[in-house]
């Protein structure tokens, strides 16, 4: 008499299965050489670091300009590459499973559709987190090197100017010389400290964190679209449109409040009420302009991101669970 264990009547949701599927998704995407974009990013950052130093916008503003441009380029590139990965990598997840027919094998096993969907999303989220971390580390490294170079140059220029002034005044009393040099040293240290402040490492980390959450949200929206779409092109195009519309939410809000055209107001209202405000995650402009944004407020933005992740994944689940495969 065989004693095969009886299968349970109900298969409960299991995070272990989600994790397994997430890792598989991550490995699969890594095999597709997604990380090759890092080479382009590295070249872009190194190029930007030397390119912007040829722009001399006046002595006072030179270091501010260079650091601002490098930071804008770095964060912009992270955002662009991240958005491309988030949309393209996510859009091909479900169609690839359907095309390879692996989805039938997986869903024939005791696996919930929600587990499958979440596994796919967590895989993409991990890929995005690794990508942003890699790009961010490289970016911070470039800013650090530039910061060191600029502050050292400013320090030496100030000291050399004072030493030149002292050497050119033979009648100057020794104590006055000492005083001039001491003041120059203080000024040079203050100048270097100001450059370190302009580099704003903590602000960069804050901006990267909010960007990562934005990318996760974009990936979740793409997954939601692909849960009912039949073509990958449709998913990519629609995701791109949602991405742009999401950034237009503040403009739509203004338009909704002021417009008198009924059709325009209706469209602005749809954008305003139903799309997540992706512009809320773009904190770099404020931070680099010197507006303080404490971590508590950053957390508020992140919790907004989490809230919309939950909404978008819920919608994706509601659609996907009814889909005929």
């Amino acid at each position: 008499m065989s004693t095969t264990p009886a299968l349970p009547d109900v298969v409960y949701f299991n995070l272990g299965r989600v994790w397994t599927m997430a890792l598989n998704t991550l490995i699969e995407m890594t095999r597709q050489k997604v990380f090759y974009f890092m080479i382009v990013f590295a070249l872009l950052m190194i190029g930007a670091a030397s390119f912007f130093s040829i722009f001399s916008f006046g002595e006072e503003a030179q270091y501010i300009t260079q650091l601002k441009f490098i930071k804008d380029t770095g964060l912009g590139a992270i955002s662009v590459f991240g958005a491309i990965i988030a949309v393209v990598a996510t859009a091909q997840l479900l169609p690839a499973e359907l095309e390879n027919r692996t989805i039938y094998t997986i869903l024939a096993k005791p696996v919930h559709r929600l587990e499958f969907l979440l596994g796919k999303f967590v895989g993409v989220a991990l890929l995005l987190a690794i990508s942003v971390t890699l790009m961010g580390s490289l970016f911070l490294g470039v800013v650090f090197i530039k910061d060191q170079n600029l502050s050292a140059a400013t320090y030496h220029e100030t000291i050399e100017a004072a030493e030149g002034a002292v050497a050119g005044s033979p009648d100057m009393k020794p104590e006055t010389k000492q005083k001039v040099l001491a003041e120059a040293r203080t000024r040079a240290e203050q100048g270097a400290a100001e450059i370190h402040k302009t580099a704003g490492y903590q602000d960069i980390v804050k901006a990267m964190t909010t960007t990562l959450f934005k990318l996760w949200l974009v990936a979740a929206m793409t997954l939601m679209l692909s849960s009912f779409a039949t073509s990958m092109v449709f998913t990519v195009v629609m995701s791109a449109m949602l991405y742009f519309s999401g950034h237009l939410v503040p403009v739509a809000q203004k338009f909704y409040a002021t417009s008198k055209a009924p059709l325009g107001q209706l469209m602005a209202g749809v954008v305003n009420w139903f799309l997540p405000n992706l512009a809320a995650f773009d904190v770099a402009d404020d931070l680099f302009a010197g507006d303080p944004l404490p971590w508590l407020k950053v957390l508020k933005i992140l919790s907004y991101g989490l809230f919309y992740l939950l909404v978008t994944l819920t919608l994706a689940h509601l659609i996907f669970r009814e889909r005929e495969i």
Partner: protein
Amino acid sequence: MKRNWVLIPLVLLAAALVKMPFEASMAADRPHTAGVGLNLKTREMIGQGMSLALLGGFRALVADFLWISAHAAWEQNRWFTMRQHFEVVTTLQPRAILFWDMASWHLAWNASHAALHDPNEPRLAVRLRDQRHWMRAGRELLERGIANNPNNAFLHEKLAWMLHDKFQDLCGAADAALKAVQLCQDWRRGYLQRLAGYWLEDCARNVAPSRLRETYDYWRQLWLREYAGKPREHWDTIDRNVSRRIMKLEEELSIPDLQRLFPKPQPSVSVPPRR
């Protein structure tokens, strides 16, 4: 599928209800980011590709690119193109102090100087008119920068320099410098305090004599706050300069001896020799 027709709108509606207060609270945290409107004028100025980048949330990158284009226009003396780029750049990033500062400098100094020395315009009156046009453009831009960043000492200082050097508005320069002193918290404060004093004195001596007392009060307070207490033998050039100005003003305003910071030396009493 029928169940979804109910659930999906419900989720969307619930999300919209939570979204509004959430976003209002985030907007209150960041009052300067109400969203840069992409109106038709801006779109025409930056072109289709840039508009797309702007819609994608790459405001800083678009601004930087236009800034570099403005730099190129400056090198080629294409002043109107340069100004157009500055207008867009400052609209896109109104919180970037660097842009306001450099753009206003280019307009008020470089473009105005080029207009005055335009080799293609033989009429001096026209060149002077054009010079003033660019100076005014620079001033307007800088004042807009101040309106966008009212608490920035650096921009007030730049306005002070512009009014002093380009418009010869001594009292306006003094007032802007005084405002900069109020707002400045860093190491530039010492220099700004003296600059404001010098210009306030220039204003009082050359334009508004009624402000002479204000000038004296300003120097007096500055001396008591920053310079007093140092023995005279340790005074440096700055101490001597400021003290000389205060002494001169005390004489001119006939400040009573007891109220003066630097009382007049008493005439020595000579005792007649005994017979």
